[in-house]
């Protein structure tokens, strides 16, 4: 009857969003008077999960699951849920979790609510709030099925330590051939860059930067802050930057702690995509740019002067506060 949380890992290392999901699962388990069970797939070290509230860790170790495979991973989580007789399952909002959750929901006949950002209003009946209309509104939804799946929005609940005595045990799911109808031919991933999905800080550039040749200063600022780089829609449409960097309604959603918009006017579709970020800074030479209405802090001025200065001062700041 415990709350089950799928703790994602990458190259054997548990991801930070997984720890956030465990923190959240512990919150629900406390509401329901039960405990948290985590299921991990090919993670090398799950000892950290107890620190955030997992009492039990089901460790799956299987070479066939070496690469992410939505069908097979969903199958593993479903079997864990059935074995543990779990009613509430927590997944994250990573691309992989969003890929596997619908199959998991059908398999478990569970109602699924993604983009959840806080603990349920009540657990009986089960009512929970989520982001809808691309962060322009919240919906309160009742999940009516016996089993429920919650997709936790990124950076919405935070890490909450909750030292719990934790025990891990091996879990050996049955995998069938249909789980492997898809062959991964290649993975193309920049390993030296912070991804928008994982970044705590995102530095984003718009049309105001005048051309792709001016992105050096955006990259310098991002590097100084340990941030990911992003861009507005026109910039990716014009091919100045790759599509993977486009943030906004039809691009990637951003839910970072800090979002710095440089030379971005702030079209409604752009703002929708970045609204979930906690603190927004805008640097733009047009004081009438709509972004100033959405931002927390702003500087009106020429990005070509301000950005290099900001980078330089941040370097000094980092050196002093290191």
């Amino acid at each position, binding site marked *: 009857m415990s709350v089950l949380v799928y703790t994602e890992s990458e190259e054997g290392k548990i991801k930070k969003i997984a720890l956030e999901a465990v923190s959240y699962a512990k919150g629900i388990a406390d509401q329901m008077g039960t405990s948290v069970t985590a299921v991990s797939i090919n993670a090398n070290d799950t000892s950290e999960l107890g620190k955030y509230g997992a009492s039990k860790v089901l460790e799956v170790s299987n070479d066939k699951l070496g690469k992410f495979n939505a069908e097979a991973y969903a199958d593993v989580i479903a079997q864990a849920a059935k074995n543990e007789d779990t009613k509430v399952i927590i997944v994250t909002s*990573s691309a992989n979790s969003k890929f596997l959750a619908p*199959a998991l929901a059908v398999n478990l006949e569970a109602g*699924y609510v993604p983009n959840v950002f806080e603990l349920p209003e009540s657990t009986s009946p089960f009512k929970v709030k989520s982001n809808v209309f691309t962060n*322009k509104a919240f919906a309160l939804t*009742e999940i009516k099925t016996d089993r429920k799946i919650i997709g936790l929005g990124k950076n919405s609940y935070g890490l909450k330590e909750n030292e719990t005595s934790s025990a891990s045990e091996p879990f050996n799911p049955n995998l069938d051939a249909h789980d492997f109808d*898809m062959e991964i031919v290649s993975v193309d991933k920049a390993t030296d860059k912070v991804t928008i999905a994982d970044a*705590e800080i995102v530095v984003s550039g718009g049309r105001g930067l005048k051309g792709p040749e001016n992105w050096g200063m955006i990259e310098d600022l991002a590097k100084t802050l340990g941030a990911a780089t992003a861009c507005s829609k026109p910039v990716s449409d014009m091919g100045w930057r790759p599509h993977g960097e486009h943030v906004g309604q*039809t691009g990637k959603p951003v839910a970072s702690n800090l979002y710095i918009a440089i030379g971005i006017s702030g079209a409604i579709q752009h703002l929708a995509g970045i609204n979930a970020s906690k603190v927004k800074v805008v640097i733009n030479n047009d004081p009438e740019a709509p972004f100033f209405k959405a931002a*927390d802090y702003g500087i009106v001025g020429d990005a070509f002067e*301000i950005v290099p200065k900001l980078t330089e001062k941040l370097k000094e700041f980092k050196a002093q506060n290191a």
Partner: protein
Amino acid sequence: MKILVCISHVPDTTSKINFTDGNTKFDTNGVQFVINPNDEFGLTRAMWFKEKQGATVHVVNVGGPETEPTLRKALAIGADEAIRINTPATDGFSVAKQLADVAKEGGYDLVIGGRESIDYNGGMVPGMLAKLIGANFINTCIGLEIEDDKATAIREIDGGKETLKTSLPLVIGCQKGLVQESDLRIPNMRGIMQARTKPLNVKEPVASNAETNTISFEKPAPKGAVKLVDTVDELIDLLHNEAKVI
């Protein structure tokens, strides 16, 4: 090859979001509805398969008669036939169930849906539909080639992309990148005229139960005014001491 493109009828991206009836319903007053942008990328790719590989393209929507102009637009863009399943779209699962019935009955080789609709952002319909009909599924699809019954697809992952090989029948949840923004088609007069006489079949729903029920909506609290600063030193100070994000 038979392709089914699932079309969600959504408020235009610039719409003001308001609610009525004690915050239980989306206020459609003055709102322009469009083909969900993610679905439109998929429809455009389907047109490519039609023109280059002779595919037949059907479009489908779950909703009341008010969604028909959106389906007509898809026909004007070039789809051959439209199906409207005559029931309000409630939750993701019940929509997936209705679509699964059409997908199965029509024997489609490829079913295309958007990664998510821009209204409810559920992102669950294509994946559920695939599971319900036992087809392969690729989400956040940004590239797709089909030869005989084999598909090669590119999927966007966090921080990169992945190339996959699989077989038909296949369901994809697609997004920008499957085609470029500049590939999108504005219906021309000939297309619009033809769309008027193309079949738009209304189908009654199969039995299905919603698993979730939206009780109410609310809008985020209005944001405070922006703090304008003159120097980067002030900005760094505020980000460090006030916002505590650096």
